[in-house]
């Protein structure tokens, strides 16, 4: 193919070409950088660190639960371990992971800007993240936190042992890190689009990031202030939520879930966005029903704000309120359905290539569907009365968060890795990992649905023997899953050292990010000139003729790119 020869020629040149990675090598050049790409890489590294930490805690949980009266940990330690797992995974891993790493890197490039609107704010965001993360880490190491990630009052504000206040302040600060990122994205999308990049020419990933940012901006302050109030109640003794002091503990749950349900969409929407890019690139087709997919992101963001009460069906929340929250939860499933079906239809008459990132994406669709559908058991009030706070819920949210968001992240990471690092990883290991992860994941969490249906309560250190079968099965799966997570750590690191140079467009995809060299230069575009966008998103075919072989198809936008590249 002529294309790859051009690519190869370019990659020869690239050996010496200056890029954002090799412009400077000093420590300050990283710690004081304002380049969104460098900040994204710093985010990627620090978030991975917290993921490994959270994963180790998950491993401890699974290890302990192989026995119904596990003796490895004391009950108190067990509680601290699963709390640490939940807190780290949610606040330090899954909320920032896609926006702050991939999003940070790709958003300006994909809309054709030299950087985010506020580069220094972006750096501040990373520092806030590190400070918040450091405080959470400190609270876990010194004293521990045994409240669960939900921090329910009055347990957290009065009864809990350990270092809850410090941890909450950490979460508060980490929250401001995501607010700053969200704010930056919003302004960037509004003001920094390249000439010709209209709203409906934006890649769907950007739409998803935009919707995410709006949720972050509107929801995060509420949880920030709520957690701050718990801190004040705990340290100073102000009365807000504690019934001992005249407060109402259920009010805390309202305020907490008002953020934390939208927060699950903060975690999910970016992943849903990533999948669009992967599907389009691996089917060489425009996403079916672009507008519907774009608006479904907005619909999820808006409706997501009015379902929080579905976490409180078993509390003293009024019956009528529960019903309202329940019905809206069913409604919010519809935009998700729209996305899923549009992806499947996109593949129709496409040219599906099973690259590693596509495998991750396919796994994502399957697991998100299962996770989302099991959400329906929970949003139906009568069944939730049985299932709430059992392992059914644990399985549900791991299906959406690990099977969904995390696989979405893996997919995006594999897709853009060549662009971000300029190196190709080993495709075979990538594919193997995707399959292993899918299998290991189902082995880990499917048994938990059954255990939950049988009534196994969550956050249980000791449990009844009849559940042991399922716990052992789950732990077995978790070891497979653990291996599946070790692999990318190895082959991705290996690619950095010994990987092939990546061409500008290794996947033959369209989109502004593939028009620039890998890795990009500091201000993204050659000569710092912004591109002028004259084409629609995902313009894989200019026109169609001929039949059969995909190789015979004309890849319209690609032709255009070839000529662009010649000038690089």
């Amino acid at each position: 193919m002529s294309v790859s020869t051009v690519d190869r020629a370019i990659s020869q040149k690239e050996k010496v070409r200056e890029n954002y990675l090799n412009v400077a090598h000093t420590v300050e050049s990283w710690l004081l950088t304002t380049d969104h790409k460098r900040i994204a890489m710093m985010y990627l590294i620090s978030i991975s660190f917290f993921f490994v930490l959270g994963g180790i805690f998950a491993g401890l949980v699974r290890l302990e639960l192989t026995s119904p009266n596990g003796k490895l940990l004391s009950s108190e330690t067990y509680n601290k371990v699963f709390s640490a797992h939940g807190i780290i995974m949610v606040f330090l891993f899954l909320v920032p992971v896609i926006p702050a790493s991939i999003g940070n890197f790709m958003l300006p490039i994909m809309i054709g800007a030299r950087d985010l609107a506020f580069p220094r704010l972006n750096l501040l965001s990373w520092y806030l993240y590190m400070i918040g993360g450091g405080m959470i880490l400190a609270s876990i190491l010194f004293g521990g936190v045994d409240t669960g990630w939900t921090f329910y009052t009055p347990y957290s504000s009065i009864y809990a042992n350990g270092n809850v206040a410090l941890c909450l302040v950490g979460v508060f600060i980490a929250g401001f890190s995501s607010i700053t990122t969200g704010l930056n994205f919003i302004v960037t999308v509004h003001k920094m689009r390249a000439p010709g990049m209209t709203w409906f020419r934006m890649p769907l990933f950007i739409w998803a990031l935009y919707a995410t940012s709006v949720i972050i901006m509107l929801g995060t302050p509420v949880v920030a202030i709520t957690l701050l109030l718990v801190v004040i109640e705990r340290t100073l003794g102000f009365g807000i939520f504690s019934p001992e002091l005249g407060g109402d503990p259920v009010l805390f749950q309202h305020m907490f879930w008002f953020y934390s349900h939208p927060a699950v969409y903060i975690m999910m929407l970016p992943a849903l966005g990533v999948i669009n890019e992967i599907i389009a690139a691996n089917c060489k087709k425009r996403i079916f029903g672009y507008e519907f997919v774009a608006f479904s992101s907005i619909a999820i963001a808006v409706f997501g704000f009015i379902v929080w009460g579905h976490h409180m069906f078993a509390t003293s929340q009024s019956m009528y309120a529960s019903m309202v929250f329940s019905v809206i939860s069913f409604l919010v499933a519809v935009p998700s359905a729209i996305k899923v079906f549009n992806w499947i239809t996109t593949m129709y008459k496409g040219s599906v290539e099973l690259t590693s990132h596509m495998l991750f994406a396919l796994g994502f669709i399957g697991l998100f569907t299962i996770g989302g559908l099991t959400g329906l058991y929970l949003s139906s009030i009568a069944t939730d009365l049985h299932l709430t706070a059992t392992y059914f819920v644990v399985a549900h949210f791991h299906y959406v968060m690990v099977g969904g968001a995390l696989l979405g992240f893996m997919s995006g990471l594999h897709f853009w890795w060549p662009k971000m690092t300029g190196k190709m990883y080993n495709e075979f290991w990538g594919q193997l990992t995707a399959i292993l992860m899918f299998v290991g994941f189902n082995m880990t969490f499917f048994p938990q649905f059954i255990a939950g249906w049988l009534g196994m309560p969550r956050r249980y250190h000791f449990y009844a023997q009849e559940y042991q079968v399922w716990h052992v099965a789950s732990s077995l799966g978790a070891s497979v899953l653990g291996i599946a997570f070790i692999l990318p750590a190895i082959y991705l690191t290996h690619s950095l050292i010994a990987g092939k140079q990546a061409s500008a467009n290794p996947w033959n995809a369209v989109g502004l990010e593939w028009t620039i060299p890998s890795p990009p230069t500091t201000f993204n575009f050659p000569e710092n000139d912004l591109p002028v966008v004259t084409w629609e998103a995902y313009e894989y075919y200019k026109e169609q003729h001929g039949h059969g072989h995909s190789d015979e198809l004309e890849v319209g936008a690609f032709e255009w790119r070839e000529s662009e590249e010649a000038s690089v």
Partner: protein
Amino acid sequence: MSLHALETVGVGDDGHEEHAHQTVSIQYENIEQQNESYIVGMWSFLVTEVMFFGALFLLYSLYRVLYFNAYLEAHQFLDVKWGTLNTMVLLVSSWSMVMAVYSGQKGRRKAVLVFLGITQICAAAFMGVKSIEYSKKFGEGLFPDARFNYAKALTMHHEESKASGNVHEPPSPRHVMAFKALEEAEKAPEVTLAAPTAMATLAGAPDKNQIKEAVPSAAWGTFEHEQNKARIFFSIYFTMTGLHGVHVLIGMLLMGALMYFYGSKHHCVEDYIPLELIGLYWHFVDIVWIFLFPLMYLIS
């Protein structure tokens, strides 16, 4: 100096070509994009701020509905005069801020400095008044931490108004309760006063139950619930005004920096964007107070 005179101070500084001195950061195409981005950014930030305070207003409203009588009574401890004064001070500061921005747009460096100065003075006055109010509340035992002592405050309040001849009616049942409770408290202070916060302060202590049993006698027990509701009012009051005060302080710092820049010769007056942004922020802080004032001080 008359207003008009103020406005014309510093005309000498301008007269250059528009935007000539403003630098454009690399990510922007032109100065307009840069300026608009900053303004959109500030507004977005204010949106988060509104949600931040909005959540607190929500807490306020919910407890106001649940515990209206306690609110009504507890708000008497807030001095309407101080509150009005502070509102006035903030409104003046808002006006001088907008005048500073106005002068900045016209490129009048000295006028900017003067108006910012007025704003600073108002902000400082606001904080001064707040600290007077706060220290009074601390003295009365109205700071809602473990030492919160509503009985004492109520009793003192009653005596004060008796002394000033305001009250002719007999004390309300709540006052009676407060007297009784206080009497008991004086008899066995270490036990009784600890009661409401026993749980809070002894969190984790093994003998929670002991304390619980040692505590309340009838009068105190009756009063405890009253006290707790007032305590919620004051918790919300201190949280909201405290956070608002923090915002004022941050505003003062920002204005200080701004004054430094406007005062120093190197600063280019054409770049009025920082001034405009801080102006927006300051008006927001003002708006929060516009709502806080009637909701906290003027409950009827």
